[in-house]
């Protein structure tokens, strides 16, 4: 199956692509009333980095109320996958749907509902903590569910509101980036290694945030190596890299 423009031809059945579709059908979560149709549906995703094919034939069907943990070897393409799911990077092949809407690079439907955390926290050093949160919130276009001060309190940065962000430690910057997730009611969370630089309290904070998010019927796609202490009913595991390294 040559990686050409998206979905021009069905791949030949003989192609030995390992089928990564999760064996167990997605469980219907207790909290949300049973939107069984997958909110985020990826089929035969392929990704190139330069001339190197990172992965192809990747399928993922994620429904509301689930927390998908992406695990895999370094360089397996976890970050590339998350960037494709967020609509930041173009897939070299395959199709992606969010709530039934086909996503090319630059789809507004996905961005309206997305909250993304990359490797870098996205914090501007010259601005204060509160100014950073306010800027990123207004940029994302999502409706805040609480006042910014409450969000900062929730992530433990309440008294640092006016401090310039460049004086924060790496862990505090990560908490500031997480404050945006608490502040905005985005149904889709995509997080790339959120637990790095966080202390034990920080990890518990993230786990608690993810649990509340899933209970509210939100969907989260998280890449991390640490085991996530979240209720098993919501947790889904996506093995990556190992099964691909032919």
């Amino acid at each position, binding site marked *: 199956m040559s990686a050409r423009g998206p979905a021009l031809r069905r791949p030949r059945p003989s192609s030995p692509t390992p089928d990564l579709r999760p064996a167990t059908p997605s469980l219907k979560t207790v909290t949300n009333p049973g939107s069984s149709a997958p909110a985020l549906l990826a089929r035969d995703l392929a990704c190139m980095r330069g001339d190197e094919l990172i992965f192809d034939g990747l399928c993922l069907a994620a429904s509301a109320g689930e927390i998908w943990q992406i695990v895999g070897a370094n360089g397996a393409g976890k970050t590339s996958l998350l960037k494709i799911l967020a609509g930041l990077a173009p897939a070299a092949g395959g199709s992606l749907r969010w709530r039934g809407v086909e996503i090319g690079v630059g789809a507004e439907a996905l961005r309206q509902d997305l909250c993304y955390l990359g490797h870098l926290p996205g914090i501007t050093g010259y601005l204060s903590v509160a100014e950073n949160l306010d800027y990123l919130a*207004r*940029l994302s276009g999502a409706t805040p569910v609480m006042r910014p001060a409450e969000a900062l309190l929730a992530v433990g940065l309440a008294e640092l509101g006016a401090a310039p962000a460049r004086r924060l430690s790496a862990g505090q910057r990560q908490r500031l980036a997480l404050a945006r997730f608490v502040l905005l009611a985005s149904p889709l969370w995509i997080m790339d290694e959120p637990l790095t630089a966080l202390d034990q309290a920080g990890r518990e904070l993230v786990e608690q945030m993810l649990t509340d998010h899933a209970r509210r019927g939100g969907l989260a796609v998280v890449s991390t190596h640490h085991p996530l202490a979240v209720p098993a009913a919501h947790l889904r595991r996506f093995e990556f890299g190992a099964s691909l390294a032919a």
Partner: protein
Amino acid sequence: MSGGTALTAARAVLGRDLLRAWRRRGEIVQPLVFFTITVYLFPLAIGPAHDTLRVLLPSIVWVAVLLSMTLTLPDVFAADHADGSLDHLALSPHPLALLVLMKAGAHWLTGAAPLLVLGGLLCAVFGLETYTLRALLLGLLLGSPVLSLIGTLASALTVGLRGGTLLLALLTLPMYIPVLIFGTSAARNAALGIPVQAEMYLLAGLSVLALTLTPWATAAALRARLG
């Protein structure tokens, strides 16, 4: 569920860039010093003969403005690329073309406008007669949006590249040539007393053309490079 219109996001981008520029106003002075040094290199090179300099001064100021622009342009996107906030610009549901237009506007206010003021001051100090000085300043005012807009596009194309500053200059200077030609010919004709409306209209036309076309190109360039 829309948490604010595109205008609030645009105002947020503009406000944030201006606030950041204000917080690092110490660094904003550096291009101005470079500009002044460049302008005063030419009298040292050409010799102190006052009348030859009087004819050449407007053209020297224009060339110095062009060169100083290539200093301030790279960090329109470089800082955002470094701290990761560039992804959030691309991830916003609001039109990216509008947001990059705001970044170009912020650059014009913090990068280009000070150069215009300083250029006028240097020429006034030098004793350039007012009619030529007015033509020079009006030309700079009308032409400089093109410099910021095309510069922001080149900054988006070269974001995150090694040697990006040099590449940015290589991309922008050929496209600055029409503005340079009309700006300097306006100043030269003004010195001879010839009316300069033609050049002013052309410069304004170029600015409007750049204003309408480059934001879409800059948005496409960012999407191409962020991928």
